[in-house]
Each structure stands twice: as structure tokens, then as C-alpha cells.
């Protein structure tokens, strides 16, 4: 096998070195065509497959934190379904929560939720723009089967700027500016006073909390970037994002629950932009850890249940794109290599790491013919190896190795000046799985790799539609169809809490999924305000799991038939109305009487999973935003009320061992919010 290794080594080296050779010939870079989508702070050039917004668009979404974040912005778009009310979980076009890639400057971030899922871990001040791709993906986007929410951070400001902000749950501070002629920096940090708030209120009104409950919370994040501008064309950036979420809740009966997750992402990026060529080389290291522990008295016995997930990923990638054919065609190619270690298991158990390598090579061409037809085609080859797979005697490929192709096509044809037809088709592969089938009440994301039994998830997705604009009116309407293969479902929930998790691959069932739906977007914009409505009618099912309904289709957990988001903005006031069909949980058992020799007993019968529909989510949020200056200081104030009608929208379910009953908790009943940001 030496020749094989040598060829592979040379191939990798060539790809990585290729950009260095090409950059020397180029001088100036001009922005290439985006895939037919542009969006400013309050206005969208609509498209079916890809939407982009700037920082103001992100901030403009009403949220419990007082100002929006990229996920809340994405959740307001058609085709996107949210997780439990108020959280940042996203389900796009029938995919699972782990099928949407959240990336920071192109590097995956696996635990992006923050403050119990109310916001994301990326400080808003660090964001330049956000982009949601739902179809017609680029070559550099890989290892997901549903959507890509891409966060691009901004370059540090050329003048010294300092900012402070305070909202319901976070206090933040940031600074950015030059460190010389070519060096600049930015630092943004946030910390949550949640535990202090809780203690203050509990001290004043102890009866509210029964007197004995305590909340411990350690929540914060830090983002820092150092940028070196090497002349006019090249830049080097090094950035670090770290976040901590840890919550502990003690009850009077000596039960307690701990939940937490941490991210640490380090990125080093070199970028060179020439007249015809753009090169980007990125190296990254990423660690995501999460734990959830419960200690509860159940039937007079102390129970300790715990789960954790640990993922380390190291990656190198190089992307190159350049104009050819008199700037009519953009050709791109790139290589992305990542080495990852996974350790799902119990908190107190000995971690067992699975080691994997994923290398993707892609080629892409996009062209614009006489400005009426835009076409893009991408092919990608993935080499994946799980190094823990059992060796076999297969002569040409080692066990745990696989080669998989991917394909993306998109086209947009301008029928008239106002109306365009669009089409996208993608074949996608995903090698990291987020286990579905965790018990009700456990919100941990267990990420596991493709292995001997767990094949890579695969999606075939097509979408088509029409979009247009007439004066102040803009709209799009389209449909999508998606087939998912090799979805994994952890069947034996109870075994998660035993040593059996170490052999998780033996506890899974593999099945398929299907989703189809209609996406509608409408926007009306005037000088003093705008109105936006997005509506999704969809059906998402899972099928082919032998243990559930004999392989027949059943609801995906977040199969929300109707999702409506309507926003009206008039001057400084904004109102958002959200209506979503309830998602699906595992219903309680039916019961029936059975004999047992001379006795009888009541047996439980579980017809399947995801068979109980939660109530419809209805929420009306109101907000007001005002910016003003006092001297050199710029103030931005957001005030609002989430869920003005105080509709009970369950946030999560949990089992109360004292009463041996299930309870649902709402996180956002009539929640006032504010944020106040100072920049100088």
C-alpha cells in the first residue's frame, strides 16, 4: 500500500500548495456573483435556495434577548422550522437538528445554542453578515444534508471603537481597532447575570420558588480576532471563539440537574484576493463538549443519570476560485481535510474516542449567460475513514473507508425583468450524526460518527419556484422535495445510561425520511416601514425503521405542518406574529390488562414514537428600537415584550419523580425584554 499512501500524500500537498502558486499572478479582487441573492437590513432580494443579511438584519429580529441573532433571523424564513418555542434549534426542509451546519467563517460550530437556547454563542457585534443556504450549495459547504447557516465575522474596525451592551440575560463588552499600520484586533465578551438575577428575585420573593430551589448558572462567551493585512491583496486572520453554558438546579428533595456545553474554536485563515483569483486557506481546531446529569429521588432511591458528548475536530482547507472566459465563468476548486475524535458516553465512564478522517475535494463552475440565465454546478468527492472499524480482508479498500460523490446544481432564469424561475438539486452526504431518539426531557446533542453499521446520511433534494418583484412588493413561491437515507435512531433510550452506549452502533436503527412542502415569502416595503410574511406548508416523515410501525411512515419530531411568520415594522415599532403547528413527542403508553398465571397486571402499549402532538405555538412579540447619540456615544435601545398574549407554548417536557407524572414548562410566557447598547 505504499504507492497508495504516496499518491494520496502528493495529491493533498498539491491541492494545499496550489493556491500559493496562483496568488503571485493576481492583483485585484472584485466581488463575484452571489447565487442570485442579496438582502439588506430590512429588505430581501428573495430566492429559494439562498438568503443573506447584514448585521442590521440580524439585529432587527425581535427576540427574548432584546435583539436578534442569526438563528432567529433564519428561523423567520420560509422552509425553516424551529425546535421548542424560544430555542435556537433549526429544522430546515425536513432535516434533523444535526443536519443543519452552523459555521463561523466556514468552520463548523457544533454547539451554537446559548443561554438555554435563547440565542447563539457568536457575539452579535462580531458579525458582518449571515447567510442561509437551503439548496444549490457551494462546493466548500460539506458534511450536512439540510442547510448551512454561515456566519461571516467582520474585520476589525480601522478606528478604535468600544461598546457595551446589556439585555435581560447578557452583559457584553467589546473593543476593536488598529494595532499599527497593518495589524488590527477585536475582542468581544459576554457574560450572563442569570444566576444573580435569580438570586435577587428569590431573595425578595422566596414564596415564588418554594423556598428551597437554587439555580447556578455559568454562562459566557469570548470572541477575539487578530488581523494582519499584508499589502492590499492578502490578509491573515487568527480568531478564537470560546463559550460556556452550565446550569445547575437544586430542588428541596436533594434532587438536582446539571446541563452544560462548551465550545472552543480556533481559526487561522489566509486570504488573497486578486483580479481574477481568490484564495483562502484555513486551519482550524474545534472542540465541543456537552453534558447533562440528573440526580433524582425516585421511589425513595437516589438515581444518577448522565450523558455526555465530546467532539474534537482539526481541519485544513484550501479554496480557490477564479474567472475564466472573459469573466463569464467562475471556476472554483478546493480541498477540505478534517480529523475528528468522538466520545459519547456517560459522564463518569471512561471515554472511548472514535477517530475519523474526512477529506473532500470539490470542483465548481458558475456562469451567467447574457445576464438572463445563471447556472452553477458543483461536484464533490468525499473520502471518509473511521479508524476504529474492524479490519477486513477487502483488497482495495480498508474497512471503515468509503468514497462518496456529491452533486449540486442550481439555475435561475429571468423570464422578465420582474420574474425569475429557479431550480436547485442537491445530493448531499453527512458523516457526523446527531442521535435521534434521546429520551423525552434530554436535550443533549449526542454527536457520533459514521461507522461500521451507521452509514453516512444521504439526502436528495430538489426545489423549484418562482420569484419576483413589482415596485414595493417582492415575493417568492416554491416547492421542495427531499429524500433522506440512512437516518439513525437510537432505539434503546434506557441503554444510553448504561455502559451500552459504548457500543451505540449496535443500539441504533437505520431508516429513511421524506419531506415535501411549499414555501411562500412576501415582502412589502415603504419608506417608513415594511411587512414580511413567510409561510411554510410541509410534511416530514420518517420510515423504514423496523421497530416503529413495521417500517411504515411516522411523523418526524419537528414535522410542523404550518409555519407562519409575519412581521410588521413601522418606524421604530415592530410586531412579529408566529404560528406553528405543534411538534411531535413520544406519547404516553396505552394500557391493557393481562393475566400472569393466577394474577393480572396492566401492561403498557407503545404504538410507536412521535405520536403525540404538542399544542400549537402562537406568539405575538412587540418591539421598539431607538438609536440616538449623546456626544460621541451612540445609544441603541431595544424594548419589547415576547408573547404578549401569554400563550402557553411549551419549552420542554420533564418527568417529575415526586408525582410520577410528566410536566411541560414554558420558557416564554409574557416575557418583557430590553437591550441597551453603547458604542463610542
Amino acid at each position: 500500500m505504499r504507492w497508495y499512501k504516496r499518491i494520496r500524500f502528493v495529491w493533498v500537498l498539491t491541492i494545499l500548495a496550489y493556491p500559493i502558486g496562483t496568488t503571485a499572478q493576481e492583483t485585484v479582487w472584485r466581488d463575484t456573483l452571489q447565487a442570485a441573492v442579496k438582502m439588506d437590513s430590512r429588505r430581501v432580494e428573495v430566492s429559494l435556495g439562498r438568503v443573506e443579511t447584514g448585521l442590521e438584519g440580524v439585529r432587527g429580529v425581535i427576540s427574548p434577548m432584546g435583539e436578534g441573532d442569526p438563528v432567529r433571523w433564519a428561523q423567520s424564513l420560509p422552509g425553516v422550522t424551529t425546535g421548542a418555542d424560544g430555542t435556537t434549534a433549526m429544522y430546515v426542509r425536513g432535516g434533523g437538528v444535526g443536519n443543519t451546519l452552523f459555521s463561523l467563517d466556514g468552520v463548523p460550530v457544533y454547539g451554537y445554542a446559548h443561554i438555554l437556547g435563547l440565542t447563539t454563542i457568536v457575539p452579535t457585534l462580531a458579525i458582518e453578515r449571515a447567510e442561509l443556504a437551503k439548496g444549490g450549495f457551494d462546493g466548500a459547504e460539506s458534511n450536512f444534508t439540510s442547510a448551512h447557516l454561515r456566519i461571516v465575522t467582520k474585520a476589525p474596525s480601522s478606528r478604535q471603537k468600544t461598546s457595551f451592551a446589556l439585555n435581560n440575560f447578557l452583559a457584553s463588552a467589546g473593543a476593536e481597532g488598529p494595532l499599527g499600520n497593518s495589524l488590527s484586533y477585536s475582542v468581544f465578551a459576554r457574560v450572563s447575570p442569570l444566576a444573580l438575577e435569580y438570586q435577587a428575585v428569590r431573595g425578595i420573593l422566596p414564596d415564588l420558588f418554594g423556598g428551597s430551589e437554587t439555580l447556578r448558572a455559568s454562562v459566557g462567551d469570548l470572541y477575539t480576532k487578530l488581523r494582519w493585512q499584508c499589502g492590499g491583496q492578502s490578509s491573515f486572520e487568527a480568531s478564537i471563539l470560546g463559550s460556556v453554558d452550565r446550569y445547575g438546579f437544586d430542588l428541596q428533595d436533594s434532587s438536582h440537574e446539571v446541563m452544560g456545553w462548551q465550545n472552543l474554536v480556533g481559526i487561522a485563515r489566509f486570504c488573497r484576493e486578486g483580479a481574477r483569483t481568490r484564495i483562502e486557506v484555513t486551519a482550524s481546531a474545534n472542540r465541543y463538549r456537552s453534558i447533562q446529569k440528573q440526580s433524582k429521588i425516585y421511589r425513595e432511591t437516589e438515581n444518577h443519570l448522565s450523558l455526555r458528548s465530546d467532539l474534537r475536530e482539526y481541519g485544513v482547507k484550501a479554496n480557490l476560485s477564479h474567472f475564466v472566459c472573459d469573466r463569464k465563468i467562475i471556476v472554483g476548486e478546493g480541498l477540505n481535510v478534517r480529523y475528528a475524535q468522538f466520545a459519547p458516553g456517560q459522564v463518569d465512564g471512561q471515554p472511548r474516542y472514535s477517530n475519523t478522517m474526512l477529506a473532500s475535494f470539490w470542483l465548481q463552475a458558475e456562469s451567467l449567460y447574457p445576464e438572463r440565465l445563471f447556472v452553477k454546478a458543483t461536484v464533490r468527492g468525499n473520502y471518509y475513514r473511521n479508524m476504529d472499524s474492524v479490519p477486513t480482508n477487502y483488497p482495495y479498500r480498508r474497512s471503515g473507508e468509503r468514497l462518496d460523490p456529491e452533486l449540486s446544481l442550481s439555475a435561475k432564469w429571468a423570464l422578465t425583468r420582474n420574474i425569475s424561475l429557479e431550480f436547485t438539486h442537491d445530493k448531499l452526504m453527512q458523516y457526523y450524526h446527531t442521535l435521534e431518539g434521546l429520551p423525552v426531557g434530554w436535550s443533549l446533542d449526542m454527536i457520533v460518527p459514521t461507522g461500521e453499521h451507521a452509514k453516512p446520511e444521504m439526502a436528495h433534494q430538489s426545489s423549484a419556484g418562482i420569484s419576483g418583484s413589482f415596485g414595493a412588493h417582492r415575493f417568492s413561491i416554491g416547492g421542495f422535495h427531499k429524500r433522506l437515507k440512512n437516518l439513525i435512531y437510537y432505539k434503546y433510550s434506557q441503554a444510553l445510561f448504561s455502559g451500552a452506549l459504548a457500543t451505540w452502533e449496535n443500539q441504533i436503527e437505520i431508516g429513511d425520511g421524506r419531506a415535501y412542502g411549499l414555501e411562500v415569502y412576501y415582502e412589502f416595503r415603504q419608506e417608513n416601514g415594511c411587512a414580511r410574511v413567510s409561510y411554510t406548508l410541509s410534511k416530514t416523515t420518517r420510515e423504514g425503521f423496523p421497530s416503529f410501525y413495521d417500517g411504515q411512515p411516522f411523523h418526524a419530531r419537528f414535522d410542523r405542518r404550518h409555519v407562519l411568520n409575519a412581521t410588521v415594522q413601522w418606524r421604530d415599532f415592530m410586531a412579529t406574529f408566529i404560528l406553528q403547528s405543534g411538534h411531535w413527542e413520544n406519547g404516553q403508553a396505552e394500557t391493557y390488562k393481562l393475566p400472569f398465571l393466577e394474577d393480572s397486571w396492566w401492561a403498557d402499549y407503545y404504538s410507536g414514537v412521535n405520536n403525540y402532538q404538542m399544542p400549537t405555538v402562537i406568539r405575538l412579540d412587540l418591539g421598539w428600537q431607538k438609536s440616538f447619540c449623546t456626544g460621541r456615544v451612540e445609544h441603541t435601545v431595544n424594548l419589547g415584550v415576547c408573547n404578549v398574549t401569554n400563550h402557553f407554548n411549551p419549552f420542554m417536557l420533564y418527568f417529575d419523580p415526586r408525582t410520577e407524572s410528566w410536566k411541560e414548562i414554558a420558557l416564554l410566557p409574557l416575557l418583557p425584554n430590553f437591550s441597551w447598547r453603547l458604542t463610542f
Partner: protein
Amino acid sequence: MKRCCSRLLLFLILNAVALSCVKDVVMDAKEKPKVVAVCVLNDGPEQELYLSYTKGASLRDPVYPTEAEAILVDISLHQEVGRFQEKEAGIWILEYSAIPAHHYLLEVSVPGYDRLSAEQAMPLLPRICAFGQFFYQIEGLHYPGLIPEIPFIPNGEDFESLPQGVKSYYIQDLPDPVWVFARNYNPKTNRHETAEEICTDYPYVDPFNITGNLYDPPQRTNVPNPYMAGSCVSKLYPQLEGRPLHRGYLHFPSRDLSDEMGYWFTLSGRMEGKYNCKDFYQRYYGDSGLADPLSPDEGYLEVVAVSEDLETYLMDAFHKQEIKTSSDLSTIYLRDNVFSNISGGLGIFGASCALKLQWSEEYEYVDDGLEHCVLSGPATAPNNFYIPDNKWPRR
């Protein structure tokens, strides 16, 4: 500033109030209920079929089909045995005695549902009997030193014995798996209840349900010794001391004992209430044999041979019941259904042959170091013991 602070505090209070919103929820999926059919054939004169629907989590009482058609077919004889008639809500009766080793088919039709069906074969009655401590001559059977008393074997006119307490049990063959349990009589509820723990020295007992407790024989002192003056210490089945206790049931897997000439064993456990066998000899020394002569307030041992699917069901159901009463919190996440062999529905179609045996609360003198105590000693298994086929109940 002070005013500003108090406003901020009010704001935080409102937030915290909002965070404490909790509701009870009954997650009833409200799916179409399934039909449940339960029928365990036996060799008695009447067969019972229980028909019901599964009950959703929000319902209080079960619902029963008001219309149904249920037939039993003897596959071995290729003929329909009869149709079940509704006796009361949920209970359907067929006057028929199932024949050991015959195969049966149950078919149930409920309007609005697919036809339910299941097949099952009747097991054979196990050859297990009880013996007293002292053995006497049996006509036609001669065993040096040990003479069996076989009070439970019908047609017992062949045997001569004196009434004595049951001390030992004998298995001659075990073609089908057998479940053995003690039924205590509870005078408060006027019902028989299964003894919580039981143990045996039968070497092939299934350890699947051992509780972790060991048998510690109850002890009596100052018991008058009929053979000597003075008193002695006596224990209840001292030969079982240290044996693992099983939760409720002893499970004897089927076993070919033809080459082993049977097994002797004893039983004890948390038997409570009246277990009196002083006069059982007279009561059982008749053609009818076993259960009928028991007085209603008396405990007894039940030996049930079960069919293949019933065996699978019982093992699974035992585990499911353990889970329901477990204090392991993780069990609330289990979503496994109990075994069912009913095609098109739920429930169990099984078959069993039951045998009732006496158990004796007989204390045995043990060596307490006093010379005046004469030890009776445990019953000793006779060598080459064998009871001819014609002495056993007909299969």
C-alpha cells in the same frame, strides 16, 4: 438612580415569574385503540377469552368490544371446537376442555378491525408429586429403606400411607417448562395471593428472578420432642438454608429427565397463613385427586406447565412488571411492548396445565448440641425411584 434600580428590579421579577410556568400534561396520543385478546387454554371444562381495547392515558376505565365473533379450532383434528359466547363485558366463554398436545387456532373478528388470530399447542401435564417425610410400603413398588407416600397421585388406592406433612417433591419428567408458586391465603382480603419469595433445591431452577436474598429458615425453640423428654430447636426446611430466594415464582425449564430417573427437591419461602396438611391424605385419597378438597382458607402450591408462547410471554411480562415497580429512574424511558402472539392485535393466546400441590409448614429438629434431641433428618432421595406411567394422571 434609586427609582431606576427599582424599575430594573421589577423587570427582573417579571422575568423570573415568567420562568416558573409549569403545567401537568397527559400525553395521550389518542390513536385508534388496538383490540386485546387474552385466552389461556386449560384442561378444565370451560375456556375464557378476554376481549378489550387498549386504554389511552387520559381514560379512566377500559372499553370492551360489544360485538365480536370468536372461534376456537382444533388444528390437530381439523375441526372447529366452538364459538365463544359473551358472558359479561369483556369476558367470553366456551364450554370445552382442551386436550394436551393438541394444536389450536383462535380467531377473533371485531367490527372495524382486521381479524385477530393465533395458534398454540397444549402442553403436557408435568409429572410432579409431593411426598411425606416418612415413607411407607406401596403395593407393587419396593425400595429398600424408603417407601413413598404419594398422596397427590390419583388412583391412589394402590398406595398405602399414613397422613404426614409434605416434605419433598419429585419430578419424573418435564416435557414443558413449569412455573411453581405458593398461594398464600389472606384472610383480610379473602383471597389467595402469590407468596413474595420462594426457594428450592431443585438443581435446574432458572435463576432469572432471584432477589439477592438467601433463605434463612424460621426457627422455633423449646419445641416438645415427641421422641425424647425435654425440648429441641427446630427449623422450617433447614436443608434450604442459604439457597437464593426467587421473586414469586420458580421457573423450571423443560428438561428430558428420562435418563436421570427424576429429581427430588424441597420448597420453602415466605409462605403465610394456613398451610395445613395433617389430613390431606384423606382428602386427596380419592379419584378426583387434587384441588377440590382444599378448604377455601388454605394455601397451596401451584405447578403450571405452559405452552411455548405462554412461556415467552410470562418471561417477558415478569421483566416488564419488575420495571414498572423499579426505582431505577431510567426505566421511565423504556418503550418496549410486552410479547404478544396475536396477529392483528395484542394479547396472548397460550395454553397451560395446572397442578395443585400441598405444602407443609413442618419444622424439623436440628442439632442444637443437646444429646436428648433425636434428629429426624431430611428426607433422603431414594435410588432408582420410578413411578410407572399408569400411576400418574392421564395425559
